[in-house]
Each structure stands twice: as structure tokens, then as C-alpha cells.
């Protein structure tokens, strides 16, 4: 779509959209292939490693090699798997992940379809994938997959709530649910300034929505050994991975548009598509690097901690945000009130996390029991003498 859409000037919105989607799918697939390379390189650097180096310059051909490997792998299905659920699950995860991009405006001119309710559409479609996870978990006929599927469903639904609530706060500030209008609203000041709490909640909940560490509970390698993916192989497995990366892109883009001003801030609407695209990519990359950084440094949460964090921390705070926003709207306070209320709530969110993790009194440090030398090293002379004597006999 990126390259194709402006060139094709057909006055048929459906054809146009279809062509754009096809082009976009291809671009996205290649893009995701290189997202893996990018991720491997960045995470490797964070881990004292080099990442792929052997295939081509800087290992640039590694994703292609991987793709060929995955495509030529045997496609296995357990004999006892539910055929329909097992096969359908892949598409139920893969297609919604791509459908999100229909409503995403990349620059002022480039988008597949201008939906007036685009934010609503994006959130609704991205929330569909949990059905796929449930189906995959059930259809694989494996207990690990079932556990993973149940965990995925619980997690995705739980984090959908704070995510949408954070968006509601933003919608209240801007007064629109159209992503395009929302970007235009951020002409001078990006929304991250007015809604820092919404941004924080979005950041946390979006990691959970794309199931990346530390929220990779449904696929936790050390617990459920891959979770729903455990019985998939070859092309189907790679479609799961692909959709996971596409999801990550989608949420990075969403964050860039809703909170960072997208292509609008700070240069305005009329700077041309080149700079706008660059702005979009840079802002998106910031999110992606953040996701990778978190992945390389945090352990995984436990399911109950994950749940309690969503329901006991994020949702109350996002509700409070909505309440304050409503108060400001009703009494027509100046915009700075958004910043103050939301900023204070953000500080509260940070503290609450610490209190929730460290409940009770502070732990005592380790006791150090000294073990002191009771014997001394004998003087070297007798030892040498003894050795000499030993040699003599």
C-alpha cells in the first residue's frame, strides 16, 4: 500500500482498498521478516552477543534463510487434534492482526481506508485474536496448549479493558474517535503531555496485548513450553510468529499516532510525505525498541500477578483518569488541568506498583556468619625441609 496507493488512481474504493491490502500484506510480511533481524541484532547487543553475522553482510540474509527453513519444514498436526479448530486458529489470529492496518493513517495522504470510527475499529479488531488462541489451545489437544490458550484468553481480555479505558481518556480530550482527526489535534502538543497516565497504561497494556515479555505468559517457554504454539510447526508456526510481530507493529503505530502525534507533530501537516513517513517510522521504532529492551531485561510475571495488576491497578487508575477528564470537560477547565490530574495519577501508578510488589515489612538482609581461619599456613621452611626429607627417603 505504501508505495502502491498513491500510484493507483482508480475511483473504486473497494478495488483500491483490496489492492492496497494485498500490497500492504506483502510489504508487512517482508517488513516483519526484517523486524526479526532487527530484534535479534538489538537484543544480541543488549546481551553481549553479536546476533546473526554469517548470512550476508551483517547477517542481513538471515531472515530469508529462516523463512525458507520454516516454509520447507514438515507441517505437523497431531492425530488427535481437532482439524477445524487447529487449522482455523492460525487464520483467526493472522487475519485480524493485518486487518488493523486498514484504518491506520501512515501519512496525511496514505491510508487504505478512512474510517470515521477508526480508533474503535482498530481496538475492536485487535481484540479478536484471543478467539484464535482459545481455538488453537483447544484444538491442539495438548495440555500445555490448553493452558496456554486459557492464559491467553484471560490475559487478552483483562488487558483489553485498561487499554480501551486509556483510549477513552484520550478520546475525551480530543473529542474524536477518528485516528486522523486525533493526529491533527496534536498539532502543537502531543497527547503524551496531556495524558501521561493514558500513555503509561497504553504502554503496559499493549505489551500484554502482543504477549511479549514480561507478559508472555501464554507462550512462556519455561512453563508451558510455547503454550498454544506447542503443536504447530513450519508455516503455521511462522504465521503465529508473523502475526505476533504484526501486532507489535500495530500497537507501536497506534502509540505513535495517539500519543506521540504521528506524522503531525512537530512539523505540521504540510511537510510532504517523505518527512511524515520518516516521523512515523521513527516514533514507531521508539516503541519497538522499548518492547525489545523490556524483553531483554525483565522476567516473566506470574498469571495471578498479571491479573491482579490489570484489575487492581490499571483499571482503577484508568477509571480515575476518565473521571478527572469528565470533571475537566464539564467545568471547562484549561488544558493544563489534564496534565496535572493525569501526571499526579501517573506518579500514583508508579508508587502503587512498588507497594503491590513489596507488601509487608522490608526484608531482612542475609546474615553473614563468619568463618575465620583457625589454622594458619605453616611457615614455608619446614614444608620445604619435609619435602626435602621426603625426597631423600
Amino acid at each position, binding site marked *: 500500500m505504501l508505495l502502491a496507493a498513491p500510484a493507483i488512481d482508480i475511483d473504486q474504493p473497494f478495488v483500491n482498498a483490496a489492492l492496497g491490502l494485498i500490497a500492504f500484506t506483502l510489504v508487512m510480511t517482508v517488513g516483519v521478516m526484517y523486524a526479526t533481524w532487527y530484534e535479534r541484532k538489538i537484543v544480541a547487543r543488549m*546481551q553481549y552477543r553479536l546476533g546473526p553475522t554469517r548470512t550476508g553482510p551483517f547477517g542481513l540474509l538471515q531472515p530469508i534463510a529462516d523463512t525458507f527453513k520454516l516454509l520447507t519444514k514438515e507441517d505437523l498436526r497431531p492425530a488427535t487434534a481437532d482439524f477445524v479448530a487447529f487449522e482455523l486458529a492460525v487464520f483467526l489470529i493472522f487475519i485480524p492482526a493485518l486487518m488493523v492496518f486498514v484504518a491506520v493513517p501512515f501519512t496525511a495522504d496514505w491510508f487504505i481506508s478512512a474510517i470515521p470510527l477508526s480508533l474503535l475499529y482498530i481496538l475492536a479488531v485487535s481484540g479478536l485474536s484471543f478467539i484464535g488462541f482459545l481455538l488453537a489451545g483447544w484444538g491442539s489437544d495438548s495440555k500445555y496448549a490448553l493452558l496456554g490458550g486459557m492464559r491467553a484468553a484471560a490475559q487478552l481480555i483483562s488487558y483489553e479493558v485498561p487499554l480501551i479505558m486509556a483510549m477513552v481518556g484520550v478520546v475525551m480530550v480530543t473529542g474524536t474517535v477518528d485516528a486522523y482527526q486525533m493526529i491533527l489535534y496534536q498539532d502543537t502538543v502531543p497527547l503524551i503531555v496531556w495524558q501521561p497516565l493514558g500513555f503509561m497504561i497504553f504502554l503496559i497494556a499493549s505489551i500484554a496485548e502482543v504477549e511479549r515479555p514480561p507478559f508472555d505468559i501464554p507462550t512462556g517457554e*519455561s512453563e508451558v513450553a510455547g503454550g498454544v504454539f506447542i503443536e504447530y510447526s513450519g508455516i503455521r508456526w511462522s504465521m503465529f510468529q508473523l502475526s505476533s510481530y504484526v501486532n507489535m507493529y500495530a500497537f507501536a503505530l497506534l502509540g505513535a499516532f495517539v500519543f506521540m502525534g504521528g506524522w503531525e507533530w512537530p512539523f505540521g501537516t504540510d511537510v510532504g510525505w517523505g518527512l511524515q513517513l520518516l516521523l512515523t517510522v521513527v516514533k514507531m521504532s521508539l516503541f519497538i525498541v522499548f518492547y525489545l529492551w523490556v524483553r531483554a531485561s525483565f*522476567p516473566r510475571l506470574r498469571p495471578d500477578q498479571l491479573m491482579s495488576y490489570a484489575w487492581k491497578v490499571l483499571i482503577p487508575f484508568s477509571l480515575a483518569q476518565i473521571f478527572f477528564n469528565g470533571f475537566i470537560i464539564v467545568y471547562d477547565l484549561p488544558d493544563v488541568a489534564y496534565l496535572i490530574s493525569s501526571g499526579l495519577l501517573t506518579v500514583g501508578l508508579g508508587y502503587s506498583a512498588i507497594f503491590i510488589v513489596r507488601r509487608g515489612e522490608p526484608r531482612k538482609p*542475609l546474615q553473614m*556468619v563468619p568463618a575465620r581461619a583457625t589454622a594458619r599456613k605453616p611457615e614455608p621452611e619446614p614444608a620445604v625441609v619435609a619435602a626435602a626429607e621426603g625426597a631423600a627417603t
Partner: protein
Amino acid sequence: MVAEHERSLEVVDIPINMGPQHPSTHGVFRMVLMVDGEKCVDVIPHIGYMHRGGEKLMEAMDFRQGIGYCDRTEYLAQFSAELAYVMAVERLMDVQVPERAEYIRVILTELNRLSSHFMFMGAFGIDSGVFGTSFTYAFPQREYLQELFEEVSGDRLMYAYFRVGGLAWEVTDNFVQRCHEVLKHTQQGIRDIDELLTKNEIFIGRCQGIGAFTAEQAIANGLSGPMLRASGVPWDLRKDEPYSVYDRFNFEIPVGNYGDVYDRYLVRLEEMRQSVSIVEQALEQLPAEGPIVAEKLPRRLRTPPGEVYAKVESPRGEWGVYLVSKGGDKPYRLKMRSPSFCNLSALREMCLNQFLADAVMILGSMDIVLCCVDR
């Protein structure tokens, strides 16, 4: 006979077979977890997949050949296992080990403890869900240790370097200098791990209060090593029954207060620092020259009849060798009291009513070596 509609309302605990092939069972270990949702209501460990009858095999090997088998049993703390074995034979034969050999033994055993704990740190990080970062922080530094062991013993994994009465051969000329170099890297590794995990909120949330054992429970279940010390029992064979030349060093024994997974991690981390200190002291005291094998050893080692229980503080706990000899050049009976085996026997009690994800952490905190469990 239960009616169909009633059956559908039955709540069933699902048995989950974790292992023998599972990323976080640290080898071929299988535990059947009966889970009610995410809670473990029962845990049934199954071991023995790696059982090779090592004790029987060692009855057929003479005392020198048996040393090699010790490595194969405890492949992460080989020097500790070798040390216990040669100590048992030396005690029966009443061999006096030369000073220099004792120091080199201590240095290598402590460095081995460091490499073993590095392995634990890496693996435990993975168990807790860090995407490989703990591993890649720990392993480059562990690699320096491995290189040192290779230089000294000629092998990366199966060192077989200790001998009854001393060492197999003299260490390399630049051994002391190399040790100092390696210790620098080691300290870097300890710092990295410390910064990555110790203060990490999620790590703390995952570790604190999990799998806690009181001191009484820990003793009754026969735990030893860092597991026991984390429960608040200041028992370390290096201090309480000092063997070799351990009574010549000043060091501290970290003892936990809560006995949970986090304390076990902290105890091991602190132990690494203490090991560095012990190695530094030992390098300082190491006699520059001297014999490395006891003089006047018979060519074929024969022990008098008798029995001895030799024990060392291996990175996992008390590694004991119960050696019964009827005379001759082979053990009549050799029992290896492996700390992994004894620690693992407490797994069920620790995991009951914990979450599935915690069971993984608890198993990880035991730092088992499956070869050492099954022998």
C-alpha cells in the same frame, strides 16, 4: 454411574506431565503436576532416566579409574565430586596430601563453585522468564573459568585432575596469574547478574515467599548447601567440618532468613563473592613450589578394609562418598550421597499449593544436576 449432565459439571484436576523433555526441568526429569487451574494440588517427581548404575560401575573400577566417573556424575561441580572421592580413599589409606596440592585443590574447587553458580544464575534467570539475558551475562564469564580448567586439566568437562594423594600433574606455569585474570572476569559476571536480577521488581515478585522452608523442615528433609543456608541454618562443611585447607581462610557464610526462592538466589550470589575471596586468599598462600603428589604412594592403590564417609561442600550441598572397602584395589561398596538427590526429594512438599509457574521457579532454585540425582 454418574449421569451425563452431572459428569459435565465435574471439576477435574488435570495431570500435566512436565518432562522428561521440557525446557525447564534441567535435564531428563519428569514431574507429574496435578493442577487445579494454575494451582498444583499434587506433584509426583519421577527420576531415574539417567540412572547408569554408577555406584555398581565404580565397584568394578580401581581407585584411580573411579575418579573419572565422579566427573560424569556431577558434571557441573566436577572438582567437588572428585575431591570427595579422593578424600575418602586418602582417609582410608592414610595418605598425607602435600600442601601445594591441597591449595590447588581448594582453588580449583572454589573456581568450580563459581562456574557452577554461574550456570545456576543463567538457568534460573531463564526459568524466571528472562529472555536469555541472564544466560548471556553469566556464560561468557563462565567460559573464562572453563578455559582455565582446560589449561590445567586438559579437558573442558571431564577434568579427572585430582588423584589419590594429590594432583595428576603440575599446573601450568602461569596458573596464579591466569587465576587472577579469570577472577576479574568472574567479578564482572557477578556484578552483571546482580544488577540484572537482584533489584528487579518482577524478579522479586516472582521469587519472594515462594517455596519457603523453615529451618526445621529443611533439616528434616535433608537439604544441604545453599538450600539449607537459605532457610537460616548456618551450616557449611567448609566451616563446620573443615576439610582440606579450608580452615586457613577467612570468609563469610551467607545465611538467609526466609528460606524462599529469593533467599536461595541471594545466598548463591553471595557465595560467589565469598568464593572469589577464598580463591584470592588461597592464591596468596599457595606455596610457590613443592610436591603435588604424596610421596611413596604404591603404584596400585590398595586400601585396607574399612569404611569411611567423606563429605565436601559442593555447590549444591553436601556431596558425600560412603566408601566401604574389603581391602584390595576396588571399593566394595560406594554410595554417593548427592545433594541434588536429597534436595530434590523435598520438591513435592515445596510445590504443593503453589502455582504452576512457581513450581518451575522452585525446581530451578534447587539447582539440580540430573546426572547427580540419578547417578
